[in-house]
């Protein structure tokens, strides 16, 4: 398990300052949680799995169980795994830890978040409620984004994860358009350099880019189709991949192990006894935009079938559009976005 935590070295820079501090803080958070989950899984070897009744009560044992199931599934061949994520919206507190850990784990540049948490308000005073909706990539079974790629740089793996070959992508952004969930983003060349904080173009000279924090995704790894990584991260499309590098080393995705409210579950749908299957059986779940036929692998649990969340989400999208397209032309939509949104 401790082995599992070892990941390909990210190229670190010795630049000091605000960026370093920020990065340190983010990585710190992720590592703490990562070590925690690692520790727990060491303990699990001695302990029998917790009885199903304690499910949904004890987050620690949930993490332990999910990690164990993950490692069990890894013993199966790739095509027999089917990774799904289950997000219990009743437990989501909108803390954005998953977003932060995702940014830290995947070292995404400013402006790119694989897993934002959407926040919106519903109801009228005094009966007002905040809604939270974490939105990772849905890893669709029928992904509309892959067939439109002109260079075959993105595809669905046999275990259901939609990946991008970052060494092949030409940056045409057609897949960004094809995705109905807004789950793909393009790396336009934003950088975590202090200079950039002062104006849109400040400090973007080419030499500065060399200190850019490089993502694991761009380094030659077996998970992204071989030694394609060229170090230059700019100009291509990026997306959530369920932290494929962590899964393959037997660790849960960063957003799952970081979730403070214990709202995010991860597991193998093909394992009938897995925690995710148990949850889906017990509570029922809904998926986003079911009507498009994309067959997402991300399930949401509300306990009430999700109809209200979906209609509320739709209303929220509508309100946002109204605000952007009608009233505040020239302004910027700031409300209700998880981290990564740029001012």
């Amino acid at each position, binding site marked *: 398990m401790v082995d599992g935590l070892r990941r390909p070295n990210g190229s670190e820079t010795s630049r000091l300052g605000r960026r370093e501090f920020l990065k340190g803080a983010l990585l710190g958070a992720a590592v703490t949680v990562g070590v925690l989950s690692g520790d727990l899984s060491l303990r699990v070897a001695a302990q029998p799995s917790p009885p199903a009744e304690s499910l949904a009560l004890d987050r620690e044992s949930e993490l332990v169980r999910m990690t164990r199931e993950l490692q069990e599934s890894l013993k199966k061949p790739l095509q027999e795994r089917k990774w799904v994520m289950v997000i219990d919206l009743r437990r989501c507190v909108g803390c954005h830890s998953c977003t932060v850990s995702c940014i830290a784990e995947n070292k995404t540049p400013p402006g790119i978040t694989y897993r934002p948490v959407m926040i919106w308000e519903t109801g009228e005073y005094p009966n007002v409620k905040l809604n939270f909706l974490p939105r990772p990539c849905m890893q669709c079974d029928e992904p509309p984004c892959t067939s439109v790629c*002109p260079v075959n740089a993105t595809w669905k793996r046999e275990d259901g994860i939609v990946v991008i070959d970052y060494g092949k992508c030409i940056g045409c952004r057609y897949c960004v358009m*094809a995705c109905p969930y807004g789950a793909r983003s393009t790396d336009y060349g934003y950088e975590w350099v202090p200079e950039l904080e002062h104006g849109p173009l400040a400090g973007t000279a080419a030499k500065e880019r060399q200190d850019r924090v490089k993502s694991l995704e761009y380094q030659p790894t077996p998970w992204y189709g071989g030694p394609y990584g060229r170090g230059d991260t700019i100009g291509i499309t990026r997306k959530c991949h369920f932290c494929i590098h962590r899964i393959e080393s037997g660790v849960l995705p960063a957003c799952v192990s970081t979730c403070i409210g214990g709202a995010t579950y991860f597991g193998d749908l093909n394992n009938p006894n897995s925690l995710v299957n148990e949850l889906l059986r017990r509570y029922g779940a809904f998926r986003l935009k079911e009507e498009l036929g994309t067959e997402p692998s991300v399930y949401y649990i509300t306990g009430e079938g999700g109809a209200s969340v979906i209609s509320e989400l739709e209303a929220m999208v509508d309100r946002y559009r109204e605000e952007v397209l009608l009233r505040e*032309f020239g302004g910027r939509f700031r409300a209700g976005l998880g981290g990564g949104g740029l001012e």
Partner: protein
Amino acid sequence: MDVSRETVVRDALRPLTRTTWKYYLIVSILALITAWGLYSYFIQLESGLIVTGLRDTVFWGLYITNFVFFIGISHAGTLISAILRVANAEWRKPITRMAEYITVMAISIGALYPLIDMGRIDRILNVIFYGRIQSPIVWDFISIGTYLVGSITYLYLPLIPDLALCRDKLALPGLRGRIYRLFSLGWSWQDGQRRLLMRAVKIMAIIIIPVAVSVHTVVSWIFAMTFRAGWRSTVFGPYFVVGAVLSGIATIIFIMAVFRKAYGLERLITPKHFENLAYLMVATDLFYIYLMINEYLVSGYIWGVNEASILSSLYWGGYSVYFWAMVLTLIIPILIVAIPRTRNVAGIVLASILVNVSMWIKRFVIIIPTLAATPMPPTTPVIYIPSLIELSITLAGFSGFGLMLAIFSKLFPLISIWEVVEE
């Protein structure tokens, strides 16, 4: 035609032999703007697309607008000249060559824009090495490639006798003379050659029409074949093609007027030509308006949640200025041509400019509002404000288009001399 054979040859060949200082002035200005655009592009290459106003929400902007616009213009030529040739419309003869020039230049410029828009141009060959035929972008590569080759062929074939004419009449030494000699393929005005050429031209004219139609249809499919509201419409193929033909005709009128004025071609290009093209333009314009009503009324009547936000932004929201400017500049040209008093060369040229302004804005309002109306709440700013780099590259596209036309007008005859003389 009431002009004598000698006058035709003299008038048509004059630009090739005499060059005024005004020409050099215009060409230098165009070259400067184009160079500025190239410089802007190098900045973009160095820094990435961050120097543009494009972000994750509105990720296609001016570049793709220009792409659709220029590919639209390219229908000028080939389609008009081919349709008129197939229909045996005799009046077309003095203008087909220019139309064909416009086509070749416009595709060359238009096809550059998606490349400029790409994040990683260094990997462009991946489209060939790893091309995926299911992707509409690959269809686009194929159809535009075919169209470019086809239009160059279609431009070149009727040019052969004129090149021979240049070879014989101008008898230039040096490189230009050699080019004429080489590319006239030993044309010697024999009946056999003529028959072969006529057949080849006819075949090309027939082939190029479906190719041209396919090009803009595929461009429209790039938009229509996604989940995005505002684009999912079956009318998009014909809609784009008709729009392309419309802007194509308008461009011919404009370019024709410029060359007529600059090179004194008044005897060859008469007001009659302008009038005929203007009628064609108005007919196409009306057809386009019909398709537009179709698009906006059908989705506007349903007023579905997704379409409503886009449509209301067009009708009275953030994009209404663009939308109504587009509608006005689409309707005014019809009035200009319809009213006898304004139906003269100046009026028709003004109408053609308005039509092209309209068509450019139209492409803008097709692309940007739909992208701004994201399917999910966005994580990055949604308002698209083109950057200076994008504006420079856009301007450079237009100046590059003019520059190429200007240079070509000095190298090859602007009028299909042999066809005009034959009358």
